[in-house]
């Protein structure tokens, strides 16, 4: 615990130093980065130990603010979330030193670094806090810091708007959390989590709804996800990586923590979570498919993965409510494991996107192409990330999805309705999500990295500096290793799962060891696959020995002069699916189509606005705005009217109260 606090202090101090020295760009960047790295390493040690030995450690000081007490505690759940928080923050920080460097003429680099360190520390405190006031303060500091990072380039209007949307969404979410915590602590005066007595079922239902809305806004549940596709592209890429990789997970953390606080859940909570999960998952990946801005695409994939995580949690809650340990264990295990995995590959992918933006200066997928030759390392790591996020074996993404599948198959398909719904939502849903994710990332990787460059930006791309490559490499390796060693990791999750499900640890251990056996076979099969691939490669080499291996232009079906602009584009690649799902997507396309025999010029552009943004929130806010603006006549500058207000108020009060 002391180590943890020390780590936090180091992070924050690094931030402040960076702020003080903000006129020395290099020094401030490196100080801040060093702060994060050192602090994270210090913090990781206790986190990992707690995760492995399941010991709790807490610290409580009185704090002279109303209902506040400085009460932090590290338990397996916190530890599980702390590990990605610290890990990814550190790696992204190393990346950031290089990424932010070109801005040094125009901006004080100390400022973003200050907020970055603040963000890292705040996220850690959020998962550690055990007092509502402390939690809320950390929560809002987290939002505020990330807001200032999102509006780092506030000169562009769309970044300002994105930041504003983000801030507003966060604040509305926090309003719900405010109500949530107040009601949580209402029957006992204290707002410390451990002092919360048992809660009446009716109250529990309300609390759960409040939590789902409040935390879900941060996590990016449909339809509260509107801020996500705006804010992530606006932020600097290493920040997007942290925000998408771990910050939105604090929302998931909140829901998990809530479940542990509220006790035995009724069944409908599970169905609610599953519904949210499947809708977020499918719609998220569909919208991702329709995007042609790389970072926007990745942002929508965060919505999708949050959906998968929520499916897992929902399954777990279902298990708890109907008393099936298998469902509970596997569901929560899958969901929480996916939290970690998503942090890994989404961080990796955002860093990769950052490198692309860094060297080409565009996020437009259709302007890129052929980057694999120009930036091989970025390409390789991005490919690994793409395979992982598509949930394909043998990488980590598959491992967590497999757990959820396993849960459903083992104990989900029991009685009538539930079985159908579960099969459709989770099995069908996951399969569909998987297939669409494959489509989306073959599109992303294929169009960006393969083929020929479509524009000059792409043509003159080059590999990024070491400081940006190292983090991506580490993350990529983690994706592979976590995938291959997933059985062992699963077996060590026993403390977390026990705490989340509050089942008997023996039961959990049994379940997990069985899972271990299963996963273990899968890993062998995966290794077999790799060995086969290597063997076949060798075999091909042997076959081609002494034979002619020529290289020529791509066979373009007899057409003599293929040019880069004739390649298939991202939009056209995704068109069959977007066409199929157009009722959801409502893609708006404007085109100047070719008319004569020798068309002068034709152009085609599509944009897919967010469905809940355009059809739910915008109309609501506009309506409020219109209605309230109509009331402005109330104060129209006439002194006489103002005095009349006073007189009338007096009269009304007298007649009302004196009768």
């Amino acid at each position, binding site marked *: 615990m002391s180590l943890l606090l020390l780590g936090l202090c180091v992070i924050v101090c690094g931030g402040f130093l960076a702020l003080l020295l903000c006129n020395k760009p290099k020094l401030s960047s490196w100080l801040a980065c060093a702060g994060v790295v050192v602090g994270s390493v210090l913090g990781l040690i206790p986190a990992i130990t707690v995760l492995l030995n399941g010991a709790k450690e807490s610290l409580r000081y009185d704090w002279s603010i109303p209902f*506040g007490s400085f009460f932090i505690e590290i338990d397996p759940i916190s530890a599980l979330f702390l590990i990605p928080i610290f890990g990814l923050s550190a790696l992204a920080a190393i990346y950031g030193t290089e990424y932010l460097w070109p801005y040094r003429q125009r901006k004080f680099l100390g400022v973003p670094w200050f907020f970055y360190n603040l963000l890292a520390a705040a996220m850690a405190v959020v998962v550690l806090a055990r007092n509502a*006031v402390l939690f809320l*303060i950390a929560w809002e500091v987290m939002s505020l810091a990330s807001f200032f990072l999102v509006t780092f380039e506030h000169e562009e209007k769309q970044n300002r708007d994105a930041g504003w949307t983000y801030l507003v969404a966060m604040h509305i979410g926090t309003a719900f959390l405010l109500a949530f915590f107040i009601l949580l602590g209402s029957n006992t005066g204290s707002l410390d989590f451990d002092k919360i007595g048992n809660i009446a079922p009716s109250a529990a239902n309300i609390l759960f709804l409040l939590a789902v809305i409040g935390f879900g806004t941060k996590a990016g549940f449909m339809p509260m996800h509107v801020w996500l596709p705006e804010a992530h592209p606006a932020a600097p890429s290493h920040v997007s990586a942290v925000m998408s990789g771990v910050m939105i997970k604090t929302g998931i953390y909140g829901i998990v923590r809530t479940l542990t606080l509220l006790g035995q859940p009724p069944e409908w909570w599970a169905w609610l979570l599953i519904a949210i999960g499947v809708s977020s998952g499918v719609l998220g990946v569909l919208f991702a498919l329709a995007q042609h801005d790389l970072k926007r695409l990745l942002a929508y994939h965060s919505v999708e993965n949050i959906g998968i995580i929520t499916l897992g949690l929902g399954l777990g809650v279902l298990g708890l409510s109907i008393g099936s340990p298998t469902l509970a264990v596997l569901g929560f295990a899958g969901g929480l494991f996916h939290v970690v995995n998503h942090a890994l590959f989404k961080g990796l992918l955002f860093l990769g996107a950052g490198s692309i933006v860094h060297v080409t200066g565009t996020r437009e997928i259709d302007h890129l192409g052929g980057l694999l030759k120009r930036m091989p390392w970025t390409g390789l790591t991005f490919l690994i990330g793409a395979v992982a996020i598509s949930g394909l074996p043998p990488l980590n993404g598959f491992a967590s999805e497999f757990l959820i599948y396993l849960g459903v198959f083992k104990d989900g398909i029991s009685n009538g309705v539930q079985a159908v719904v579960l099969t459709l939502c989770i099995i069908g849903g996951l399969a569909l999500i998987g297939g669409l994710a494959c489509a989306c990332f073959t599109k992303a990787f294929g169009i960006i990295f393969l083929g020929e460059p479509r524009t000059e930006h792409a043509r003159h791309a080059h590999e990024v500096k070491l400081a940006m490559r190292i983090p991506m490499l580490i993350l990529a390796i983690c994706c592979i290793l976590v995938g291959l060693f997933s059985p062992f990791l699963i077996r060590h999750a026993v403390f977390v799962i026990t705490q989340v499900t509050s089942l008997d640890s023996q039961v959990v251990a049994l379940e997990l060891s069985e899972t271990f056996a299963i996963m273990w076979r899968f890993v062998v099969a995966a290794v077999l696959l790799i060995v086969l691939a290597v063997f076949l490669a060798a075999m091909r080499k042997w076959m081609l020995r002494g034979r002619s291996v020529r290289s020529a232009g791509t066979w373009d079906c007899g057409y003599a002069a293929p040019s880069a602009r004739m390649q298939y584009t991202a939009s056209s690649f995704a068109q069959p699916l977007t066409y199929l799902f157009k009722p959801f997507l409502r893609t708006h396309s404007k085109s100047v189509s070719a008319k004569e025999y020798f068309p002068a010029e034709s152009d085609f552009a599509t944009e897919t606005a967010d469905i809940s943004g355009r059809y739910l929130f915008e109309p609501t806010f506009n309506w409020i705005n219109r209605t309230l603006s109509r*009331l402005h006549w109330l104060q129209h500058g006439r002194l006489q009217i103002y005095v009349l207000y006073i007189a009338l108020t007096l009269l009304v*009060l007298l007649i009302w109260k004196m009768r």
Partner: protein
Amino acid sequence: MIPALILVPIVAAALSLIIRHDNLRRVLFVSAALTHSGLTFVAWSCTPEAILNGWLMLDAPGLLFLSITSVLFLAASFYAVGYLNFEKKQEKQDFEDGSFFTNTPEAIFIACLLAFLATMTIVTVSQHLGLLWVAMEATTLATAPLIYFHRHHRSLEATWKYLLICSVGIAIALLGNFFLAVAASKTGGQDTRLLLSDLIQQGNTLNVPWLRAAFLFFLVGYGTKMGLAPLHTWLPDAHSESPSIVSALLSGALLNCAFLAILRSHQVLSAAGQSEFSSSLLIVFGLISIIWAAVFILGQTDYKRMLAYSSVEHMGILALGVGVSGAAAFGAMLHVVNHSLTKGMLFFVAGNILAAYKTKASKDVRGIIGIIPASGVLWLAGFAAIVGLPPFGIFLSEFTIAKAMFEQHRTGIAIAYLAVLALIFISMSRIFLNMAQGKAPQGIPAQAGSETIFNILPPALLGVTTLIFGLYIPPFMNTALHEVAKAIGGF
């Protein structure tokens, strides 16, 4: 000590009318403010004895409000030095319509400021409700010339409205005093004096219908001064047209004094067992105020007016807090402190922005960060503070009030409260952020020079203070706030 508190500013005011030399007068001004706050500081350690057989006395609420006023005035006095340096003496052009105008002579301005301080001091220390009324009316008269500092027609209009509306309000409050006297009078036997202590002591002997009527009149009368909707109408005009220091003092100190007056009458009613009556009324006015403020902050084009409406909002929150009572009373008192500090800070910064951009239209102000960085940072910080984002103090007070609402199962009120706050957040964030961020419009000279220690330090210090109160409330203050909360029927 109380005489000293009152006399120091009065004497200083008189002197500043005599003194010819500008700098000397400013030195006098600042030193008077320093002395006043010094005396206030001493008052925390040793409670000053009552004088005029208990008419003037510093009880817990008085001390709290006096301290706020004094601190704010000190900051304002520092700021004023820089401001008066910046303001040109000779005739100058109005930036809205090219007409020419001059400023009120500095001597009168400073004298009025000091008189204003003196009157507010009397308000905070007076225990006799009649005397309280006299002081209240005096504040109106002392501030009228301050609002009319820039002698052009808009400020004249603002002054006229302020004068008439507040006078009418105060007149109604006077009627309230008379009603209270009637309520206190007894056929046969000694009548209760209008001293707070006596009234509270003999609360149960007061005549209820008259007492209630008296409270109505107090509420409407002092409410006009405090800026409870729909009686607040003078407030945006006066705040937007007067110089920023004056706006800061109006929002941060004057409104509080009016609020104190209402608190006093609320104390009396609670003592007479009528707290239900007064609480319900306070809640009603509180709700109306925050909603009204929300309506007019939405799409507000003038950032000083926006700040003024936010004052209306926060006065509403205070009324709500006192009305809900219980733990909310403590929250309200904490809110008084935080709001005054934050609002003072914001108005000072607004003054800097006005000086740099020469416009009050928020749409013409862009990229403050780039032009006047320190003010830009303070502007953003002030935004975070005023909308109640942690780790600033207002978050804690608003949180406490909300908690009390939920715990007393006033769920409807609580929901309305949270919803309106969220709405205000949305509209305010739009205005603030668009002003602070973005590219500065053409033709704004890089005004880095215009940021001096005088116009940065005061707001910065106020901001830091409210930040500290958001993270740690010193024990002495905690006890004091609880004492006040008890005095007004909470805990």
